[in-house]
């Protein structure tokens, strides 16, 4: 991520050696060793509990609050005429969001930052080389700022969530927990269109679209009671003993003549389980929530194609938002993403007052199909009547969900009267801007939360050029916005994305100073 500074070394304490017992939780966390939440499920009961575990020692108080990064990733663009704040650049006012798709965020506007005029870079429309059609680039570039390969449209580098998690997530250097990557919707299976997150070049990370599986991610860690330290210690001892044996089994394999690829495969595998063993054992992390546990239960036995049915979309959205908020709040992960279906896809919105006939992608083009011929309106190719309103309603629906996520995070209070949201930055981003034109320019972005005082709040700031024109895409590349976020997380970085000089002609290094508090 940095062309000058290289990898940052963490000064967090090392947990253990390769086989040793855990020495500490190793996360430099200001919260107490045993961390848990209760009372979730729609009513905000979590507030006082985190407060309870606020640090008591002076040393811990001096520590920085945990920072988190979340991504709310929508696809197929927005109705550009009714999305952005309507007031002039500067402070957001009571009028700014009124009547726009962002109106549901009004109560939170003091914690929002709207960077305007940002374009994707590497660019679309064939202006920079690289694989993928417009949707393919929109998906592959958006969180990576990397080119996609021309065969499979897979990004040729890691995404910002994985880069950040590798530096700040619970775990030890070189073996931190990956981000929680969630999905709502149905993978299409066509090239890279399903993916926004990448662990490394050419390796996409499929989002989890089953809420049971998503919830299980952190419940899997520890099935002992956080209130019963003795049981916890016993579980830790048991898992360590099992791990010691499993390690011997790994060592048996390493004696064989393995290729370097196979060796890496095994090393990554063992690193993954070694790390988790220690965390679960040492911290007694419990993000369990009985209401949520009950709510996700029906998804345990559902077949994949039932989970992916259109009419489950709103329920899964709500559950995955709760899971994501809980995962960030209880420090299961400090980085999480939620992707809404995929570019060139999307559900048919038939809920919450909408009853569309066509799916999101079709509506984004105004027409019911992809190959309507030029401007001809013959043969059923006229625009869908009222499609702009339908897109507005879809956008507004997304912003309602985004507002729910932010409100939930804002309801968890941490040390110093700050909320989890205050200590986080939760980015709204979209695969495209104007979906009808497949535009990569003037992208809709929101940064919610100041990342612990790093970002300005309650502001609408012009970085580049507003307006989805084809000539003004040189001003504010999104790779610099991603780099700004990396820095906001406390990770010094000069550059993010495809290396300088590799063909992303409008890419820039540095941070957007105009966004900083």
């Amino acid at each position: 991520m940095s062309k000058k500074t290289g990898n940052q070394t963490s000064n967090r304490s090392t947990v253990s050696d390769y086989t040793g017992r855990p020495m500490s939780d190793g996360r430099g966390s200001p919260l107490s060793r045993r961390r848990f939440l209760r009372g979730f499920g729609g009513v905000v009961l979590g507030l006082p509990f985190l407060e309870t575990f606020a640090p008591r020692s002076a040393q811990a108080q001096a520590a920085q609050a945990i920072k988190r990064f979340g991504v709310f990733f929508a696809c197929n663009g927005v109705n550009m005429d009714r999305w952005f704040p309507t007031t002039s650049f500067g402070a957001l006012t009571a009028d700014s969001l009124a009547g726009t798709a962002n109106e549901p965020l009004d109560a939170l506007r003091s914690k929002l930052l709207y960077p305007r005029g940002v374009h994707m870079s590497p660019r679309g429309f064939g202006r920079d080389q690289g694989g993928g059609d417009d949707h393919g680039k929109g998906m592959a570039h958006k969180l990576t700022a990397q080119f996609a390969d021309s065969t499979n449209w897979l990004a040729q580098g890691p995404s910002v969530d994985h880069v950040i998690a590798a530096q700040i997530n619970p775990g030890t250097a070189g073996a931190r927990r990956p981000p929680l990557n969630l999905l709502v919707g149905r993978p299409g299976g066509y090239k890279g269109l399903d993916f926004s997150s990448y662990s490394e070049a050419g390796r996409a990370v499929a989002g989890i679209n089953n809420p049971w599986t998503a919830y299980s991610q952190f419940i899997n860690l520890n099935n002992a009671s956080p209130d019963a330290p003795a049981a916890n210690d016993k579980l830790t001892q048991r898992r360590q003993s099992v791990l010691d044996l499993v390690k011997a089994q790994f060592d048996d394999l390493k004696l064989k003549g393995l290729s370097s690829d196979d060796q890496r495969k095994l090393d990554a595998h063992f690193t993954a389980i070694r790390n988790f063993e220690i965390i679960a054992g040492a911290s007694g992390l419990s993000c369990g929530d009985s209401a949520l546990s009950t709510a996700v239960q029906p998804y345990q036995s559902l077949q994949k194609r039932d989970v992916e049915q259109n009419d489950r979309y709103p329920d899964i959205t709500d559950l995955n938002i709760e899971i994501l908020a809980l995962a960030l709040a209880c420090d299961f992960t400090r980085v999480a993403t939620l992707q809404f279906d995929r570019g060139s896809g999307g559900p048919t919105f038939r809920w919450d007052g909408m009853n569309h006939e066509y799916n999101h992608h079709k509506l984004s083009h105004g027409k019911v199909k992809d190959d309507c011929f030029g401007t001809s309106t013959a043969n059923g190719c006229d625009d869908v009547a009222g499609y702009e309103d339908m897109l507005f309603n879809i956008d507004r629906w997304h912003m309602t969900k985004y507002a729910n996520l932010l409100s939930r995070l804002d309801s968890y209070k941490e040390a110093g009267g700050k909320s989890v949201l205050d200590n986080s930055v939760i980015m709204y981003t979209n695969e495209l801007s104007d979906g009808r034109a497949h535009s990569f320019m003037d992208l809709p972005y929101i940064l919610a939360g100041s990342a612990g005082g790093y970002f300005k709040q309650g502001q609408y700031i012009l970085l580049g050029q507003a307006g989805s024109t084809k000539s003004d895409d040189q001003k504010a590349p999104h790779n610099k916005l991603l780099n700004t976020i990396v820095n906001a997380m406390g990770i010094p970085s000069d550059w993010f994305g495809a290396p300088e000089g590799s063909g992303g002609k409008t890419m820039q290094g540095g941070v957007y100073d105009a966004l900083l508090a």
Partner: protein
Amino acid sequence: MNDRMKLAALLGLLAACSGGTISNGDSNQGKSGTTAQPFGTVTPVQIERETRLVRLSHEQYANTLQDLFGDSDRRDVSFAPDALNGFKFDTSSDLRVDARSGPEYRASAEEMAARAANDASVFARIVTCATSDAACPEQFIRSFGERAFRHPLSDAEVGRFRALFDRGSELGGGGDPFHEGVQLVVEAMLQAPQFLYRAELSEGELKNGRSSIDDWEMASRLSYFLYDSMPDAQLFQRARAGQLHTDDQIAGEVTRMLGDARVSSKFVSFHEQLWQFGRYSKIAPDSATYKNLPDKFIDRLLNASDAFLGEVIDNNGGLEEFLTARYAFADSKLAALYGKSVTGDTPARIDFDKGEREGFLMQAGFLASNAYAIKTDPIHRGLFILRDVLCRAIPDPPPGAATTPPPPTTEPIVTTRDEVSLLTGQQYCPTCHGQINEPGFSFEGFDAIGRARTQDNGQDVDTTGSIIVDGDEVPFQDAGELVEALAQSDEARNCYVARWLEFANGRDFATVDVALRDRLAKQALSVKELVTTLATSPEFRSRVEAGQ
């Protein structure tokens, strides 16, 4: 590669379409004539070594747990999904255990181990000795371990599992020491790489760049290839007896295994992935244009397509039959689309007259999944023929191509064929579309939901065209003549066999596979014959260690 294609490659014409810069001629040829050189087939990749560690897919993992514990209930595992990163099949040999799946495997192992210890019927299936017998712990470790690791345990392994077994009381929940020991051992074995990977660690003889595998490894190769699960008792017995390495020994086992119902579903799954039935999920005809569409249209189409695949496989058919069978499957609602009559919601076989329909390409599933809401999609129907039936390397359209407006025209645009011809007749488009469009147009005798038609928008459909196959230009009057030409071609057979090898090997078709591909594609084989020949080949019982 025939002479014409070699010439084209030498002239660099094949690469002319890639990267969005098109230099091949014929730029004004849009509407007729396949005058451009055909694109070559996909170039085999080069590999030096194959992996010795193939992680089980989530499906294989679930199947294996079921067989290992003799559970009658299929226990679905709900793991975070794998990304296949461009590989076409779920049998990828490149799956990893990462920081996300590591804890999932552990949680699953702990859950299954608790079940093994606490469910008396499961316990009785995996512990067959008397628990009071002093030799029983080791006996259990050896017998269960051999099945879990699909290979006998070394003495060192037995020793370390025995040591863990003996700590059952110390580390467990205070139950009977034997049960606690079993739970602990199962918990550890299910997290061992020897269980989670299909590991090939024997050091076989290196010959022609390939290293032979041992009989245990062969048992696993066969069973995961055909059953998608661990070896059954007889395969284990053959491996133990050292009887799984000659042509006859392997052919005998394959023949026996072909009678198992799991093999049929694996074969069906191969063809579903090969021919992308996943695309059925996008079928969304315009309800105003196509009135009285069957409810649950997509499910009905999937069931019908699977039934067709099963019928061809069971009747010892192969590629030729898939492409030219004069029958399909349909339930009562789908049968109406074909102008036939069937009772009930279960797909039943319907037969066609000559000239009516042939093969899966003229069945409603393929036709409707390569169509738009209100009309057909000849481009993708044609592209499927070139890319997926003939393995031709057709590049994607250059950036922005889809939004390029058509040129002004005074000619009337009536049919979909007119429209597509005009749109793709511009600039550089004909380099590719000169080859794609006409095979696609051959299906214009079928509408967007797969019904036969003679007219499009009031004008007679034109299904004529030509395609270059095996180096010869083959004219056709309609889709029937097209699929018959394809069914007889070396190119289609080469392509189909190459895909089978990808499915079996879990990796892209490589230069080291060409010889086996050529042997298998030399004649028209049924699916069962092809798989039997593949599985008994020297290539299938060896691993590439020094490829070129």
